[in-house]
């Protein structure tokens, strides 16, 4: 079984190699992604929930003297993220249109982003957790720069430099963490680190935790490190935006859950006030910024930044309910935002514009597209029945359980739900309802590939919405009982 976990990382890389030597890019990439989804489903359902803990382990010695090994393994949280990653990958590759130039490079870039995220989720060694995430940096730069739209060059530069700097800050934090361990016991293995933290064997410093928070935070677009995200998502081609907003951005949150929360419980407590302030910025400030957007892609880009606030709120609750909610919300948001960007790409491909001023009444010409977008908008707002709702509710419960300090953030959070209803419904109305302009009357409706790839994302969203235990049971195995 542990072989299967290794395969999920190797398959996309092997497919890239095949494409390099001349295999048909789309078929090879999609084939690898489907196999990967199957593998992650098998892993998800064969995980022994009763035993819990890390399973499917495998290990290679890389720098044994420094205590650095490449260790792969998975627990419930990992497998949930893995499922999310493989689902979004299949959907993104499926929805990708035929591209004229550098088709091989297009699919190789997508596969590398996917392999990087999967590797990061499956790594037990922090250095590899970090390294795998960086695999996505150059592919993102290429994807936005070559196939992007709008002011793609500026967006690509901004995202690359921001993420490059953010990840280096993170690396410094990780090195500092490594050095703060008494020499002789130095390791970057999460299992050993957690044990050491539980025994109080190393002295966590607030500074290191702050550096980690800033590093992970800028990768997740935590306010005020968010400004790279909306332009990058708006300009990126749909599949790249889906992978980036849907799964890559979850890496920072995953890292916080895995590293900052268990290793720096006191420091996180101390930094909680600061974190809450930033969360309010994320929800309220970015929320209002989102309302004022004039284009659909920018609206969704900003909304994805805003929704990170809820997940951070769940983490700041520092209790099991809150973290459960955050994890469920990560899963839900990943699926819903990927579906939103997929539909965005479909609309752009038909109309060539996403400007609210130019679009109206598209639902008359493209009813299925309109219906699917309606679902996505409802999910994004957090309507009951979608996993987003369950996640948000848990986050609010967890936060209130933390104590009276949380009252204000929770009120802001609930108000944020209203804000997201405003902008999502407005977007839905502007684009799909009202009188249809004559130039849009001849539009063709969504094709089968795009339709099914969006349904592939919406189905698990609804399953987890009606039966959140499906995800929560798995996530629970990774949390202290």
């Amino acid at each position, binding site marked *: 079984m542990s072989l299967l976990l290794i395969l999920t990382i190797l398959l996309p890389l092997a497919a890239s190699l095949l494409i*390099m030597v001349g295999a048909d890019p789309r078929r090879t990439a999609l084939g690898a992604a489907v196999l990967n989804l199957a593998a992650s489903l098998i892993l998800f359902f064969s995980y022994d929930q009763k035993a819990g803990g890390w399973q499917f382990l495998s290990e290679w*010695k*890389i*720098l*044994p*003297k420094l205590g650095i090994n490449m260790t792969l393994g998975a627990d419930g949280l990992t497998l949930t993220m893995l499922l999310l990653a493989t689902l979004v990958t299949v959907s993104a590759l499926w929805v990708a249109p035929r591209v004229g*130039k*550098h088709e091989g*490079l297009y699919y190789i870039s997508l596969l590398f982003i996917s392999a990087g995220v999967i590797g990061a989720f499956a790594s037990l060694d922090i*250095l590899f957790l*970090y*390294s*795998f995430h*960086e*695999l996505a*940096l*150059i592919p993102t*730069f*290429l994807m936005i*720069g*070559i196939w992007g739209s709008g002011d793609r*060059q500026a967006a690509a*530069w901004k995202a*690359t*430099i921001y993420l*490059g*700097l953010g990840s*280096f*800050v993170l*690396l*410094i934090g990780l*090195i*500092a963490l*490594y*050095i703060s361990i008494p020499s002789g016991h130095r390791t970057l293995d999460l299992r050993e680190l957690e044990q050491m933290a539980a025994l109080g064997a190393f002295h966590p410093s607030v500074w290191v935790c702050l550096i980690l928070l800033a590093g992970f935070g800028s990768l997740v677009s935590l306010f005020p490190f968010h400004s790279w995200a909306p332009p990058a998502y708006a300009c990126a081609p749909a599949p790249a935006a889906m992978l980036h907003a849907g799964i890559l951005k979850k890496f920072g949150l995953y890292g916080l859950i895995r590293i900052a929360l268990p290793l720096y419980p006191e420091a996180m407590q101390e930094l909680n006030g600061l974190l809450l302030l930033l969360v309010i910025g994320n929800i309220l400030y970015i929320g209002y910024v989102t309302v004022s957007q004039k284009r659909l892609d920018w609206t969704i880009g900003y909304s994805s930044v805003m929704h990170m606030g809820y997940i951070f709120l769940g983490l700041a609750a520092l209790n099991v309910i809150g973290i459960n909610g955050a994890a469920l919300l990560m899963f839900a948001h990943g699926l819903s935002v990927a579906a939103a960007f997929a539909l965005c790409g479909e609309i752009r491909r038909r109309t060539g514009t996403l400007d609210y001023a130019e679009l109206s009444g598209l639902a008359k010409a493209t009813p299925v597209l309109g219906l699917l977008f309606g679902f996505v908008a409802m999910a994004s707002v957090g309507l009951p029945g979608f996993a987003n709702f369950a996640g948000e509710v848990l986050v609010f419960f967890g936060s209130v359980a933390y104590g009276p300090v949380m009252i204000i953030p929770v009120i802001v959070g609930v108000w944020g739900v209203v804000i997201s209803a405003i902008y999502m419904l407005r977007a839905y109305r502007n684009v799909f309802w009202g009188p249809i302009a004559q130039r849009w009357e001849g539009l063709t409706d969504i094709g089968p590939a795009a339709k099914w790839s969006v349904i592939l994302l919406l189905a698990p969203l609804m399953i987890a919405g009606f039966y959140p235990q499906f995800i929560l049971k798995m996530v629970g195995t990774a949390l202290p009982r």
Partner: protein
Amino acid sequence: MNTLLLEIAVVLLGVVLLLAEAYSNRSDKNYLAYLGAAGLFGVLVLSFCPMHPPAVGSTEAAFVTQDILSVFFVRFTLVSTIVTLLMIPGYRPVLERYLPAERAGGGIGEFAILPLFVCAGLMWMVSSIDFIMIFVSLELATITLYILATYLRQNTASLEAGTKFLILGALSTGFIVYGISWIFGTTGTTNLLALPTAISTLPESAITPLLFGIAMILVALSFKISAFPFQFWVPDVYQGAPTPVTAYLSVASKAAGFVVLMRLLVALVSVPVISHKIQVVVTLLAVLTLIFGNFAAIPQTNLKRLLGYSSVAHAGYLLMAVASLGSKMAIPAIGFYFAGYLVMTMLAFVVLTVVSEVTGGDEISRFNGLGRRSPLLAGAMLLASASLAGIPFTAGFIGKLLVFEVAIKQGHYGLVALGCVTVAAGFYYYFKVIRAMYWQQPAEETPIRVTFTVKLLIAVLGAGILAFGIYPAPLLSALR
């Protein structure tokens, strides 16, 4: 085996090839480069045979040593010379264009032979533990490099580069001799190993003249390793010199300078009286070099010049580790960084040689659309840039990781914070090349043909980048 055998073998190889060049009538001079590379490869293999270190008390032992550092950097010098020699056949058209030829191939052969003498000089230099020996080997290497830098004697840029290099090199030679004489005057020794004891017995009044001598030597070494504020020759010389020579200058010659610097500083920081002052100076050098190298690289449009600034920038990261010599991981970190620096820089220069030959220039815009004209070259350059920028799973990342680790361990938090900012700047200027290759339209669509030697170099160097990046343990254990 004798300690100096390897160096002597390299010199002999050079002499034999010079004679062969003089007496042979072949107009195709490529065979000299291949023979030289093969010969050096033989020496490299020889270097893995068990060797006796010089006997304690012998004359040799007073001048040269055979420790992990010297053994590693002797091999490092050999490998970088081999790569440089293999780049030369691809560079031949340029040589022929700028050299007046009375007979076919005249005046070109020496270009492939002279690097052997530089190689011997640098090999000596990395094993030297005596100022006199350091000076002599340094001169052997630099004088030959003057000739190589100015080799294209009908190209004004090359002449300008050679002249600048000559004048500034001579100046730094002056500094080093002057510094040595002050140190010898105060301590009575030129041996680096004897230096700490000699200094600790000095009266207080002798410390200032000693520090003056050390400062002079630091100035001279800063020229060699291109540390700010003695880096100003680098961009001009790198841009004007023949590309293989530029590659050689930025890798092998710089590494030898760093080895001497490390040996000197290891000796000096063990003396409490002066160690703090020396630390401050080196840290300051690191700060300035990091800032200058990285930020001055941002606006560059010529790739050779950009790589010049990048070499200054990398000197900054290396100085970060040199400033942290107190940690026992510092020297392995520097050695590893250099191994990674060799493969990534050489790979970038190999691609540059091919591209500038086909397109007729070194500007970054000449790389426009390379992704379509030659996926292999573009992929190789992508890998080299990724590694230079420090992206995980490449040699450059592990190098930076080790350097930052020793710096944090030694408490250089300011340096580390600065390092983060300069790394982000690095992302910008290295990605400029990636942008040109993939985002921009090519000026013409004709595919670029790549010779077997270049393919081999790309394969070996690219494999090196990935191997050091994914599995660094063997190389690192060779350094401890």
